[in-house]
């Protein structure tokens, strides 16, 4: 009966294995990786598998029920002000605790850390409230995106060049593995108890709207402070020679990430407790389950973050550096595309998204199709990002057409796919992107001597953008197919006369003449 745990670990195994094999293959062929780095990477992969399995289980048992529960109770209360204020507060507290935001803040020395963290937090808070109000007042999702992305691109004109890539990255970075399941469940919950026909479509899109908050916040800060230089945390690759060195690296990492994860989850626990006291939604048994689930989430995320930060980061950086040094460094583009295709499954929040999509659509949008669309999107984004690293083309040439295409598509595909697509942008750019793909780009950028702030950063923004297009294209093809099917069936229906056959009536009319005469089995409770 431990089926669900085994299932989750299996899922994690099949998600992490492909990228592990690719890196191993690279390390024995064209990238002569030091054995210490390889050992760090392999240990990291093991931690990743266990961590991801536990995280996925924790999301199912704790994060999703909490998020859904809170939004259902808020919707039921029918108080718009309460819903708006609660969404805002929730958005702020889960964002300021997100570990990735702290890292981002350190990267911008010219803006004081607390200012940046709070501005981004308030940005997400405002946008979560906007997302909730949008659902209530039935404002079209596409309109919201047009309005705010236009604002984003207009503001970007006034911001120092070195700053832009980082601002766009921040949108993907701050919607991390804790925020995503929670906000997603929040949207699904609001839709769950409504009985109008749009409710399913409105289940998604919250993460997508929330991703705009950080971008706007950082752009505004960029205009205000007008920083001449942005800095990034230099990557220091530890020297590891023995197995003991490897163990020490991981042991050093554990407490750091334990603290980060606990700090990030704490506000959610507090909010949950206050909510439970006020609403008494959950039964005693459910509360115990939620706390066990939170424990899974914490342990899972600690193992995952330790694994990627200690194990994957040096490997990514090294691969990027070595490949870009080669005379045939164009190989980074196809290799990046292959890595991108397979690495998406290793993002923990992706499985949460795919599962929610499958459940909300009652299996009509299967996990497999979601995964393929995300993989293709990721592959394209890595190809573009690597091209940018090697050539130094401005990020605007990719982002502006990309977002215009994404928004244009939103007018022709069914609304539910637009919501899912914009959500998956935030989902795809998680910790794996930040700790493996970004170092890969930075490593490559160092080797070719490019501008790291302009060329290497921006990879997260790419990763967050391409799924918007691929998921919507998938939705377009998919909905066409379903429409064709239903049209065939309904075409047949109109050809025949349709009526209701009542077995009991028929049986009475033709007593004894029908071979399969139908009888109800008698009352047998006595």
């Amino acid at each position, binding site marked *: 009966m431990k089926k669900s745990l085994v299932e989750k670990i299996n899922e994690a195994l099949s998600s992490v294995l492909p990228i592990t094999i690719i890196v191993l293959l690279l390390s024995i062929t064209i990238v002569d990786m030091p054995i210490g780095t390889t050992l760090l990477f392999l240990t990291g992969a093991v931690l990743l598998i266990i961590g991801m399995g536990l995280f996925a289980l924790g999301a199912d048992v704790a994060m999703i029920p909490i998020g859904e529960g809170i939004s259902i109770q808020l919707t039921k209360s029918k108080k718009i002000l309460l819903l708006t204020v609660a969404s805002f507060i929730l958005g702020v507290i889960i964002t300021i605790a997100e570990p990735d935001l702290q890292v981002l803040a350190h990267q911008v020395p010219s803006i004081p850390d607390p200012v940046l963290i709070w501005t981004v937090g308030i940005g997400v808070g405002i946008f979560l409230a906007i997302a909730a109000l949008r659902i209530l007042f039935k404002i079209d999702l596409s309109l919201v995106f047009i309005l705010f992305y236009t604002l984003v691109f207009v503001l970007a004109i006034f911001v120092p060049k070195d700053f832009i890539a980082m601002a766009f990255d921040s949108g993907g970075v701050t919607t991390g593995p804790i925020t995503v399941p929670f906000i997603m469940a929040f949207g699904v919950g609001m839709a769950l108890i*409504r009985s109008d026909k749009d409710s399913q479509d409105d289940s998604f899109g919250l993460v997508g709207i929330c991703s705009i908050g950080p971008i706007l916040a950082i752009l505004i800060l960029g205009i205000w402070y007008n920083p001449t230089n942005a800095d990034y945390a230099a990557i220091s690759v530890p020297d590891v020679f023995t197995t003991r060195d490897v163990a020490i690296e991981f042991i050093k990492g554990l407490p750091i990430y334990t603290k980060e994860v606990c700090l990030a989850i704490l506000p959610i626990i507090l909010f949950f407790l206050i909510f439970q006291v006020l609403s008494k939604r959950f039964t005693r048994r459910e509360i115990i389950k939620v706390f066990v689930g939170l424990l899974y989430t914490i342990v899972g995320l600690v193992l995952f973050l330790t694994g990627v930060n200690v194990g994957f980061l040096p490997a990514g950086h090294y691969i990027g550096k070595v490949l870009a040094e080669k005379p045939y460094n164009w190989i980074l583009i196809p290799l990046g595309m292959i890595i991108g295709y397979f690495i998406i499954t290793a993002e923990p929040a992706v499985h949460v998204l795919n599962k929610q999509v499958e459940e909300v659509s009652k299996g009509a949008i299967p996990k497999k199709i979601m995964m393929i669309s995300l993989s293709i999107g990721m592959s394209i984004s890595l190809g573009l990002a690597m091209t940018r690293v090697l050539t130094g083309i401005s990020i605007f040439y990719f982002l502006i057409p990309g977002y215009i295409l994404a928004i244009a598509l939103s007018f022709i595909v069914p609304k539910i796919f637009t919501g899912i697509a914009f959500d998956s942008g935030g989902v795809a750019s998680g910790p794996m992107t930040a700790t493996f793909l970004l170092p890969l780009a930075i490593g490559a950028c160092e080797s070719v001597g490019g501008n790291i702030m302009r060329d290497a950063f921006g990879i997260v923004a790419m990763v967050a953008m391409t799924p918007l297009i691929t998921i919507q294209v998938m939705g377009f093809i998919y909905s066409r197919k379903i429409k064709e099917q239903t049209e065939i069936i309904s075409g047949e229906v109109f050809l025949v006369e349709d009526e209701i056959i009542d*077995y009991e009536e*028929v049986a009475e009319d033709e007593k004894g003449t029908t071979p*399969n005469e139908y009888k109800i089995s008698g009352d047998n409770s006595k």
Partner: protein
Amino acid sequence: MKKEQPLMSIKLVATIVNRGHGEEIARICNKLDLNVHFLFFGHGTANSEILDYLGIGEAEKDIVITLAPSHKIPQLFKAFLTDMDIRKPGKGIVFTVPITGINSFIMQLLAADYEKIGEGEVMDMDNTKYELILVVVNRGYSDVVMDAAKSAGARGGTVIEARGIGYEEAEKFLGVSIQAEKTIVAILCKKEEKHNIMLAINKEAGLKTQARGVLISMPVSDILGINGLESID
């Protein structure tokens, strides 16, 4: 029109399997030209409280509802046995419930290859040994229902999350009606145990309790996948 077409008895075949195996069920049905099926999600109930607390007790389930003419049920059950070995513990449960009305178009679809079957092959409906109990309660009370049912001899159940619809008291919020969250618990049991199980559930989760439970039971014609008595060999 009504008199001309063959009238066959049709049953509703419900299959409960682990999540992801619903497609397999649909494939088996399609092979027998049974093309009308619907899938929805539910989850099993935990075997023990400890497993439940640990969050690893409830396996997620696919529930497939298929419409099939009675004479095809033996064939269908045989296919389930040979193609996916459904009798293996934990693999799944199939049962059928007789239906009392249907629209004629669906009937025609199902009767496409219907051959008149002789009297001898008519199945005797009174011969059912199992019953299906359905309990509709307020959200969060599935544990209470299952605990009560188990105390009276039930072995397990399947939980489906749902919401109310059409309630007169449904509340409106900005023009959108907000529905109550409901949970449906489905329990298969032997005929002789049914009464006690329903009594126990009614006591703990009936209409007079906070769970506001609505209980019904219906006869099951054929069943496969529960250890012990099965009405088809």
